[in-house]
């Protein structure tokens, strides 16, 4: 036992002396939080719009003014004809062109027809659909307003909306849980796979194996400091999101931390498993980083909801632990769920951890034979 | 011709508060085999790195092949060969590829490279290893190869930093055959080692202890001066007081 503790102590010292890595380790979540919190949003702001106004009358100008006053759009240019659109889109500053037909006011007031077209640049579909839906909404409201001044009509059904769980409609709610999910698994898997593979590459692994330390103790000793580091990381992230974004933890903090610890364990065991497959550090880094980065970012459900993906991805993401953890963490932080709500996901994480450890043990034993 | 090809005067190298080289002064004569002895940690590697242009001195003067280590280190590099403790051959390249690389870097013509490669392989009896990865060769072979690669471009001086670590005495002896050959062809050999028996193979040796040169002469002269039967004994007599200081 004393040997084991001595070994663990050496591993701790090894890590804590490496200032550069430590700084980065804590710098990464901090910057991520800031990035996701302030930068990665999908709110529209000052999207460039071109106006092709064939009527140029009071009403068209008033609609245009309303659009620009909304804050979502920015008048980039006024066109004279449709033939200009292609070049404008190609140059990239104009995201959509709004065309008014000729005799717009007359047709609206006498025939009740509003001839407006929104032509959007589809090469960025998310911008395009936001622009068209925001612009349509504003245009429709404008026209309703104008029409009510001139004509009597009634709107029978009026919906009133309440945005649940997120009164201020801030995007942070979506992303902070995702940041924790992404960072933890990447860092844990990277760190452990590299540290174990390093011993293999230098050749000191053999030295460790012939020492009185049991293999299990070696692995545990290597992994223990990273467990602590990751846990501290989680605390840092939670504190940051609380102080910077006022993101509360609606549910039980203890449950949240416990689930985080489970997730960290899963990440560490994944790293161990990866280290059994790699013989050099470069390989370990490649497998961990490339293998986990995009799938965790895109398929875990925190930026792109899984419900909106083709059905098959429900099954594909089934085997991705981040997908489950995102659910857990969102539920606890935002909905205030308890263990009874998320026991299925928790079980899955635990199962994944045991699977990784099992595979690692088997590969380790076969190597020794 | 006994002109000095390496001239060192009051060379100092400090790392923070630790002085690795403390006012070293010595000459190395053209064509000689100069042994730079000392215990581990005495400052040998530091000095050799300065002479090779891998490290800047803190103060003092040093000239290698007539070039100033401060301002003309790149010219020095054109005229020297170097073999480090780690042998520094690329483990994932073949014998041929390694030689080809260094030949090209030193500006040898393709024909020259090809000719001398075959010559080298024949001499070392490595023809069967031409396309073997360095990583697969035993240490003794790697050493010989590293040395041969270091003098491949026929430099005027070759620096060897602990070249014979980790092999048995017979292999070490064989290695020194190569050094003799190189010296006979006119290459000055500057070799550091902590194996005191290798001192006997050198024309002159210097003994370093705790950053200072405590003796410099031919092996025979040293033995006589200190009344010892081997340079090893000489070293023990000189270096012991300093050794306890270093601890």
């Amino acid at each position, binding site marked *: 036992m004393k040997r084991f503790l001595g070994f663990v102590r050496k591993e701790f010292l090894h890590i804590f002396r490496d200032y550069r890595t430590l700084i980065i380790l804590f710098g990464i979540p901090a910057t991520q939080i800031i990035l996701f919190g302030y930068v990665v949003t999908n709110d529209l702001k000052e999207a460039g719009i071109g106006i092709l106004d064939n009527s140029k009358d009071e009403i068209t100008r008033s609609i245009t003014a309303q659009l620009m006053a909304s804050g979502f759009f920015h008048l980039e240019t006024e066109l004279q004809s449709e033939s200009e659109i292609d070049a404008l889109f190609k140059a990239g500053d104009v995201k959509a062109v709004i065309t008014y037909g000729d005799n717009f006011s007359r047709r609206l007031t006498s025939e009740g027809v509003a001839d407006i077209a929104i032509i959007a640049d589809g090469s960025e579909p998310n911008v395009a659909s936001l622009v068209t839906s925001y612009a349509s909404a504003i245009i429709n409201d404008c026209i309703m307003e104008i029409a009510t001044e001139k004509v009597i009509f009634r709107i029978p059904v009026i*919906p009133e909306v309440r945005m*649940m769980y997120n009164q201020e409609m801030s995007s942070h709610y979506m992303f902070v849980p995702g940041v924790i999910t992404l960072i933890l698994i990447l860092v844990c898997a990277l760190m452990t796979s590299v540290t174990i593979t390093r011993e293999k590459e230098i050749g000191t692994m053999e030295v460790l194996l012939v020492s009185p330390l049991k293999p299990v103790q070696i692995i545990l000793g290597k992994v223990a400091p990273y467990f602590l580091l990751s846990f501290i990381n989680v605390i840092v992230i939670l504190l940051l999101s609380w102080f910077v974004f006022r993101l509360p933890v609606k549910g039980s903090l203890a449950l949240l931390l416990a689930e985080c610890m489970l997730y960290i364990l899963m990440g560490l065991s994944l790293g161990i498993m990866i280290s059994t497959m790699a013989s050099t550090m470069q390989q370990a880094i490649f497998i961990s980083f490339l293998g986990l980065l995009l799938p965790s970012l895109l398929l875990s459900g925190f930026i792109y909801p899984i419900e909106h993906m083709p059905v098959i991805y429900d099954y594909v993401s089934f085997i991705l632990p981040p997908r489950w953890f995102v659910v857990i963490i969102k539920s606890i932080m935002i909905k205030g769920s308890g263990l009874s709500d998320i026991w299925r996901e928790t079980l899955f994480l635990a199962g994944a951890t045991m699977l990784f450890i099992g595979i690692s043990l088997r590969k380790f034993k076969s190597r020794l034979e | 011709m006994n002109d000095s090809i390496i001239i060192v005067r009051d060379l100092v190298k400090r790392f923070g508060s630790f002085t690795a080289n403390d006012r070293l002064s010595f000459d190395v004569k053209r064509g000689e085999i100069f042994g730079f002895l000392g215990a581990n940690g005495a400052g040998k590697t530091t000095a050799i790195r300065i002479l090779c242009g*891998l490290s800047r001195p803190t103060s003092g003067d040093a000239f290698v092949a007539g070039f100033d280590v401060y301002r003309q280190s790149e010219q020095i590099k054109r005229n020297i060969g170097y073999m480090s403790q780690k042998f520094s051959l690329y483990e994932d390249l073949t014998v041929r590829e390694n030689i080809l690389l260094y030949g090209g870097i030193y500006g040898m013509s393709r024909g020259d490279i090809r000719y001398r490669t075959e010559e080298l392989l024949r001499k070392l009896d490595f023809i069967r290893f031409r396309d073997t990865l360095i990583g697969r060769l035993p240490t003794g072979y790697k050493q010989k190869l590293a040395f041969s690669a270091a003098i491949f471009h026929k430099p005027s001086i070759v620096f060897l930093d602990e070249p014979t670590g980790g092999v048995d005495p017979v292999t070490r002896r064989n290695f020194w055959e190569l050094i003799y050959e190189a010296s006979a062809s006119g290459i000055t050999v500057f070799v550091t080692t902590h194996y005191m028996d290798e001192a006997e193979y050198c024309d002159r040796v210097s003994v370093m202890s705790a950053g200072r040169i405590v003796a410099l002469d031919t092996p025979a002269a040293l033995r006589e001066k200190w009344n010892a039967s081997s340079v090893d004994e000489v070293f023990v007599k000189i270096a012991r007081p300093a050794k306890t200081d270093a601890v």
Partner: protein
Amino acid sequence: MRTILCLIRKEFSQIGRNSLILRAVFIVPLLQMLILVPAVTFEIKNVRIAVVDNDLSQTSRGLINRLGSSEFFIIEGYAESAARAEQVMHSDGCDVIITFPAGFEKEITNGGVGRLQVIVNAINAVGAQLSWSYLNAVIRDYNMAITVTPDLTELQIPPPAITVSNRFWYNNMLDYKYYMLPGILVILVTAISFLLSGLNMVKEKESGTIEQINVTPVGKYQLIISKMIPFLIIGLADLSLGLIIGKIAFNIPFEGSLLTMFLGAVIFMTGLLGLALFISTFSDTQQQFMFIAFFFTMIFILMSGIFTPAESMPDWARKFNIVNPVAHLMRINRMVMLKGSGISDIAAELKSLTLIAIVFTSLAVWSYRKRI
């Protein structure tokens, strides 16, 4: 110069022997693109509505039918009470709750206003916003339909027929794959190239072979260039492979000029690799480099515009993006591939990329020390 060629030949010999990495470099992008590209969409589809109908009238049912038959919504089920419905939302059983109050139809036929209570799960703020606006669109249509139906006794003047037509150029099906493929490809090529080049340099430092180079007359410029060119070639090969996959597997259009795209790619890679080598000067171990690489690539990727259009970012972020090579390349790729933009259109991005390339490469060379 011959020295550079010798060094490059050595690099390729080494890379060629590293079969696992070679395979990873080409297979990983292939696999990930095939799997990830079709997955990522931001469309609003299959939004689940739980209905609490306390009115059970023709009017309420009429609206419910309309919602159910729209392509955006699914009527997930009916709840007996608002409280019950909220529980369902809580356990993620639905995304939207619509409650019709008792007396809904009566209000309307009496000339008043029928008020609906709508609750939207806003954890995904933008999704919620879009769902809400589609919901409004359906309700608007319904409003018009009710008003003109002869069922109602009063004759009302219908609200104006607003034809706001939407057309999407270059991508009329608004296929997200067209957008995501260049993005994912660039991310992969960035990560791979950055890691390959940086780790390579750090490994030479760790194993000591770099010392053997430092002791030769090889110049700093020559060394850095020889460490960049092999990985530049590999990166471009990766990019090409990705584009081919895009064409074959997803039929992504390629409207513009291949040459323009590759011009952008070459300048991009130069800058990226320059940065990687600059950072490698300060890393003593592969682990250190890995973390720093992680740090930078994450920042570049997140701010690149793949998840978030540049128009949505705050000003300071947009300014930062001037030095973000990934953002520029993504824009260039997208513009050239989908819109056929030409060199003059991407001139600004090319300029920035060139500046980045010059700065980072210079930093890499300047910071490299043959002598410590």
